[in-house]
């Protein structure tokens, strides 16, 4: 144990990466967070758990260069609030608001107490992740799109008579009690001044993309402020996990955010395996690395194409997407699924590779290296494209560090964090991954980091294919987990670190599963990246981050 954050007694979590946990008291939370923050550490995730006989438990997952640190803060049922840490870690703000919306425990004296994930799907004062939560009433009578819902839910439904939390607007309650769907009157921050006006964008967009609302305060074309409103794709994934078996859970984890299915499935499997004290076969670990790098390759190819498309350079778009399609088809042909869903399961993997498959992938490596090299030169020498990319959507390294920007976007702003490099689990411990970083923090930097990582992933894929030796075993059987366990899995997905935390109950069943997407950290930074830029550059800046809605909204 080499963590020295007194007053903390830590125990090692038996997972593939370095992780410790320790129980703390409420009064120590801010102190420890402060120490971690000033030592260069950052916040990874924050979630709460209903253990009602013993109250609630708040979990704060921090990270420094030595590994992960999970702080467990028990909260008694009747106080149900915890010290606000959003002043130390700004990224905690939305996580704290989500914790309140889902479990009803509030960050004490936090500046922003607005709802975050709750729209109108469940009423004020009921909390889905509490164990006594009854299936939610979607709406009553005629809903807003004009579908007649009849008498559902019945007037005596328990959620319709819950008292509101103090400080919430009273009219929210009165609408709920009168039986109609509460309006989603979310108080946006207003910018005052001569010539300032608002542009509301979304949640329904002109193109086919995920829903999110963006409120721009602009003067002419210049953006003074952007405020995001997310949560439109809240599907109740965390609640759904509670009733699932291990295998069903693996399937659901792979669907938290479709573009990161490998990362989520691996993080889930890693967490399960850490509770079961099981190490998968060598072959499976190598293959997991292969799948993850292929996911990174496919997504970076797609994004590079989209970035070309966003500046109306459709030649680049078409070429990158031809390459991406090639990768996806090889996935389907060799592993049975274009996006590699369900190839990683707790205990191992479901798809192997033979000599013919290796040949196909090695040929693909060559094709990618050749073609992407050409396309990179094309992007870099195209005056029009470079004019749009350079200096657009700048996040300076200092701001990035302050806000906790992570993952690929973080590395483009000088935040040298890559869990494949810092906390290498098998097979990365044998691969010597080179981290790609840039310090300008603009769209051009994020493009360059994508190119660098793409080439590195192709190199890794080749290395893995060369080293791919091991038994024929693809997976070890895994049926039962130990009771009351905590498992943590963290994987460097293409967007950033994907974390899954799993708690088991007395019988070793899934009690609470918390998947965490790096988008939680990066969405708030996007609000800063657009400031001072012009409105038509927003889609480009947004795409250069390409954050997940589904992975964030859960």
């Amino acid at each position: 144990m080499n963590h020295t954050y007194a007053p903390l007694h830590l125990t090692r979590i038996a997972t593939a990466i370095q992780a410790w946990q320790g129980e703390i008291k409420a009064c120590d939370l801010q102190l420890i967070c402060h120490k971690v923050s000033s030592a260069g550490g950052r916040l990874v995730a924050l979630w709460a758990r209903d253990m009602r006989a013993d109250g609630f438990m708040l979990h704060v997952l921090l990270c420094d260069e030595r590994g992960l640190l999970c702080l467990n803060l028990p909260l008694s049922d009747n106080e149900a609030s915890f010290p606000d840490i959003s002043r130390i870690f700004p990224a905690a703000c939305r996580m704290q608001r989500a914790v309140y919306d889902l479990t009803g425990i509030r960050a004490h004296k936090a500046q922003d107490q607005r709802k975050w994930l709750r729209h109108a799907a469940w009423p004020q004062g009921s909390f889905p992740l509490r164990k006594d939560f009854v299936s939610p009433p979607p709406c009553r009578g005629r809903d807003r799109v004009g579908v007649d819902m009849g008498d559902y839910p019945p007037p005596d439904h328990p959620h319709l008579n819950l008292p509101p939390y103090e400080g919430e607007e009273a009219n929210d309650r009165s609408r709920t009690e009168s039986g109609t769907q509460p309006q989603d009157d979310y108080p946006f921050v207003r910018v005052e001044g001569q010539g300032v006006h608002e542009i509301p964008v979304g949640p329904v967009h002109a193109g086919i993309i995920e829903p999110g609302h963006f409120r721009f305060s602009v003067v002419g074309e210049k953006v003074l402020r952007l405020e995001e409103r997310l949560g439109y794709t809240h599907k109740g994934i965390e609640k759904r996990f509670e009733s699932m078996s291990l295998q069903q859970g693996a399937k659901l984890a792979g669907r938290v955010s479709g573009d990161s299915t490998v990362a989520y499935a691996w993080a889930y499997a890693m967490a399960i395996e850490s509770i079961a004290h099981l190490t998968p076969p060598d072959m499976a670990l190598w293959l997991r690395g292969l799948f993850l790098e292929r996911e990174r390759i496919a997504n970076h190819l797609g994004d590079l194409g989209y970035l070309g498309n966003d500046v109306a350079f459709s030649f680049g778009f078409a070429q990158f997407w031809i390459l991406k399609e090639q990768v996806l088809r090889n996935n389907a042909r060799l592993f049975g699924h274009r996006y590699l869903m369900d190839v990683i399961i707790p205990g191992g993997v479901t798809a192997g590779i033979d000599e013919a498959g290796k040949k196909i992938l090695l040929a693909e490596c060559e094709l990618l290296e050749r073609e992407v090299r050409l396309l990179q030169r094309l992007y870099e020498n195209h005056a029009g494209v470079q004019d749009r990319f350079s200096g657009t959507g700048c996040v300076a390294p200092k701001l990035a560090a302050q806000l906790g920007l992570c993952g690929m976007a973080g590395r483009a702003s000088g935040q040298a964090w890559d869990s494949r490099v810092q906390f290498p689990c098998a097979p990365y411990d044998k691969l010597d991954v080179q981290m790609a970083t840039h310090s300008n923090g603009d769209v051009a930097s994020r493009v360059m980091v994508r190119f660098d990582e793409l080439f590195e992933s192709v190199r890794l894929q080749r290395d893995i294919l060369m080293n791919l030796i091991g038994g024929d075993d693809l997976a070890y059987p895994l049926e039962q987990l130990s009771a009351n366990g905590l498992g943590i899995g963290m994987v460097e997905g293409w967007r950033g670190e994907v974390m899954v935390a799993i708690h088991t109950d007395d019988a070793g069943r899934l009690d609470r599963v918390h998947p965490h997407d790096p988008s939680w950290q990066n969405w708030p930074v996007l609000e800063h990246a657009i400031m001072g830029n012009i409105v038509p550059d927003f889609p480009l800046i947004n795409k250069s981050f390409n954050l997940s809605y589904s992975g964030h909204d859960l």
Partner: protein
Amino acid sequence: MRNPDQILAIVFQLTQLLLVVLAAPMLTGWVNLCQAWLQNRTGAGVMQPYRALNKLFHKDAVIADNASWLFRITPYIVFGCMWLAAAIIPIIAVDLPFSRAADVIALVGVFALARMFIALAAMDIGTSFGSMGARREMLVSFLAEPALLMVLFTASLISQSTQLTHIVETFAHHEFVLYPSLAFASVAFVMVLLAENARIPVDNPSTHLELTMIHEAMILEYSARHLALIEWAASLKLFAYISIGIALFLPHGIVGVGNWSGLPLAVGLLLAKMMLAGAGLAVLEAMMAKMRIFRAPEFLGTAFLLAVLGLLIHFLLGA
């Protein structure tokens, strides 16, 4: 109207009107097809715009509750303006009855009328995108219009007339002369054509990103037949602009009214020129990325400068 010459002129006028309105979507389809080829894609074929129009005409229109009559009539006015413009320009024949109705300055006015209505309609429904698009459209067009006028003046000075018919007759039916002033004007004209038809690098006709749109942002609220008319009008506008370009810079082959024997050649040459221009447009667009919106003034300023240079060269060299 008893005069056989006049009847013949009307027949020619109607032929041109029908030809233009029916062929315009094919030009758009051709440009899209060329673009697809340049991107290693198969493309949807030149008939795709007709299928899209057909689909739109069969849909029910959805209109915002607070839309006024302005919003409803704008598609018809815009379509009418573009069709009228196509009637004025000598596309297959000179000296058509309509061409006497307006000279090049009035033609620019017809385009401006359509633009004014579409911008007003965009603001009429009160969405932020409509106003945003209208405001950007005005920024682009008030810079493009003077440049276009300068181009037209250069040609007018050479032919001593602002009538397109006379301009075409001067260039097409006299001995072949190289006009250095027209070389400058033609570059300026291409730049204006890109800006006025919402093409790359000023706008992107195929974008789905509402925040970057100019023309598309103004028509976001239109659907069904209204949208079909606006899309069709956009095709007509592109066709009309390329026709102006042909009339100014490559008028050879345009016949006089009543010249039946020359008509097949005129139509054939028109087809060839349109295909060439469409392919050229696709190549230009494939090579460029979209500019930041505040580069558009620089771009159009350059167009204006080139057009003025053309004028000056005409005065200096007399050619």
